[in-house]
């Protein structure tokens, strides 16, 4: 996205970026030129042909196909013949159930940013000090991110049952009044989900922030120290502003991830309970209304709507939030 992770990158850009931006063979060495363009084209075709074919066939084409089937009422077999125009889209946008899952998805997106962001920045700054066992800490906080969502869902689902370990533990701690039906109670369920999401993904955010912190040159901190700034003053005046680009990129990743959340909700709540518990997401709606109901045309239309929403949100985010990180990136060429 950008490399504005510190003041030292300006020199990097000069020494490394610019000569390479034009490609390795910009002023083509004589030997290369002699070999001829035809041979080079052949090499390019042989090397990039298969990956592009696989990528277009299984990533780009399905999305195009979804746009096509979205205009049909179609059960998933035989050719799609029953053209319904924009009817699927009209149904989706007026369906109260969809409005509900859209709201849940946006809520999850907002809460993920609001909870994980500050927490990860705080923990990263804390862990970026010279403390013992840093590498062990790094590994341990990354563990939840490595475990599959199915396993996370199964484990948390068992722990949070009304007669599960979480309530039992609260009882032992003398907090029996806090015992709750964490999963089925519609008032609590979304917060339970947010707790599990934060648990699973905050380690990833901390690791990113730590990497961002390490690219801030030490000289800045030393200078501030000499000027008599306190530890937390340094963090507020120097670290936070310079960590900005990392935080903003993490934000984009978090947004895209939140908007397509499926596995965790599907495993813990299932497609029916999630509706009453208030945790169903757009992807849950897509699967329930699409494949499970045998309406592949409608499911495809939901996929298109999901894609457009993610795309618009990501685009807005890029324009409004990432703009300053991207400045220069366009003119210098993304590649």
């Amino acid at each position, binding site marked *: 996205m950008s490399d504005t992770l510190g003041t030292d990158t300006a020199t990097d850009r000069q020494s490394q970026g610019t000569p390479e931006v034009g490609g390795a063979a910009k002023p083509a060495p004589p030997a290369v030129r002699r070999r001829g363009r035809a041979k080079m084209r052949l090499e390019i075709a042989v090397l990039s042909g298969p990956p592009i074919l696989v990528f277009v066939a299984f990533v780009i084409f399905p999305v195009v196909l979804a746009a096509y089937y979205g205009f049909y009422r179609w059960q998933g077999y035989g050719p799609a013949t029953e053209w319904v125009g924009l009817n699927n889209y009209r149904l989706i946008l007026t369906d109260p159930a969809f409005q509900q899952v859209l709201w849940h998805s946006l809520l999850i997106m907002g809460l993920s940013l609001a909870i994980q962001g500050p927490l990860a920045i705080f*923990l990263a700054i804390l862990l970026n000090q010279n403390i013992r066992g840093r590498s062990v800490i790094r590994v341990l906080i990354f563990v939840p991110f490595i475990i599959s969502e199915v396993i996370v869902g199964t484990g948390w689902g068992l722990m949070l049952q009304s007669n599960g370990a979480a309530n039992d533990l609260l009882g032992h701690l003398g907090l029996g009044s806090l015992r709750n039906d964490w999963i089925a109670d519609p008032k609590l369920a979304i917060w339970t989900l947010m707790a599990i999401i934060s*648990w699973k993904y905050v380690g990833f955010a901390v690791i990113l922030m730590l990497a961002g912190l390490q690219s801030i040159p030490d000289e800045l901190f030393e200078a501030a120290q000499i000027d008599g700034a306190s530890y937390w003053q340094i963090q507020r005046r120097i670290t936070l502003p310079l960590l900005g680009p990392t935080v903003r990129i993490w934000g984009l990743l978090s947004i895209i991830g939140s908007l397509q959340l499926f596995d965790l909700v599907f495993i813990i709540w299932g497609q029916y309970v999630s509706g009453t518990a208030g945790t169903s997401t757009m992807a849950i709606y897509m699967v329930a209304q699409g494949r499970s109901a045998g309406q592949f045309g409608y499911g495809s239309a939901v996929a298109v709507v999901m894609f457009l929403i993610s795309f618009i949100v990501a685009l807005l985010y890029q324009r409004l939030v990432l703009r300053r990180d991207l400045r220069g990136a366009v003119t210098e060429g993304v590649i």
Partner: protein
Amino acid sequence: MSARTVDPWFSSAAEPNAPVNRRGSGEKAAKWGNPVTYFIALLFIAVCIAPVLYIVIGGFRTNSQITDSPAGLPHPWVVSNYSNVLKSNTFWGEFANSLIVGVASALGIVILGLMVSFVIARYDFKLKSAMYSLFAAGLMFPLVIAITPLYIIIKDLGLIDSLPGVIIPQIAFGLPTTVIILVPFLRAIPKEIEEAATIDGASRLGFFFRMVMPLSLPGVVTVGILAFIGSWNNYVLPLYILNTEANFTLPLGVQAFSSQHSVDTAKVLAFTSLAMLPALIFFSIFQKRIVGGLTGAVKG
């Protein structure tokens, strides 16, 4: 998503190895620092690890122990849950499927990703940046969104309920991240090496096989491990593609097992912890590369 930074692999991956020259001066490294910091760090780690320990330790208990005291420790420790799972053909069948899918996906992603990244990084031609943008745009097409039409395509290809039906789309969806990690990495190989190889009579393809492959090995390993773990954990795609239990991968297996044995919590916990173990072991062996590679990719 661009990745035009300075060589993310070397800069970030090397860091975990060399924590000496960090913040502050060398004399500080010997000190223990603020106890509050340790307290918060330990608290954070405890929160991260406790649910994992609950699953692993719960597998050593009996169902009556779990019912009597859901948050207690095993007393006595029983290994029968684990040994039963380890003796079952279901577990090993699903384990083998996950392994086949994971290795094949990782190999496919690495080979195809390396090919196209090499072209983007080391050739100069008009459509180069369009090619990069094509793959970078792939990040905006998450698997979940494409799953319905993907299912139809796989069905039309006759690959439903077969492992290749999971492997091929996983390779395709793994390519964007791979390209974004590998391109800056390949571009960082000094031009002098290529020129020297040319002078010595190597063709560009010869250079690719003799020099690029070995030199980019660390980046390739990162990408391969990420691909393997991603595949090991993938749920949506197998859920759509695989129907019969003989073809299930472990995530599907865990879900099927926990609904079949919903009253046998201890056995479910044992099955679940055995299913996550390979990914965890894999991660702890290669953690430096994974953490380094990921941070490098996002920095870019």
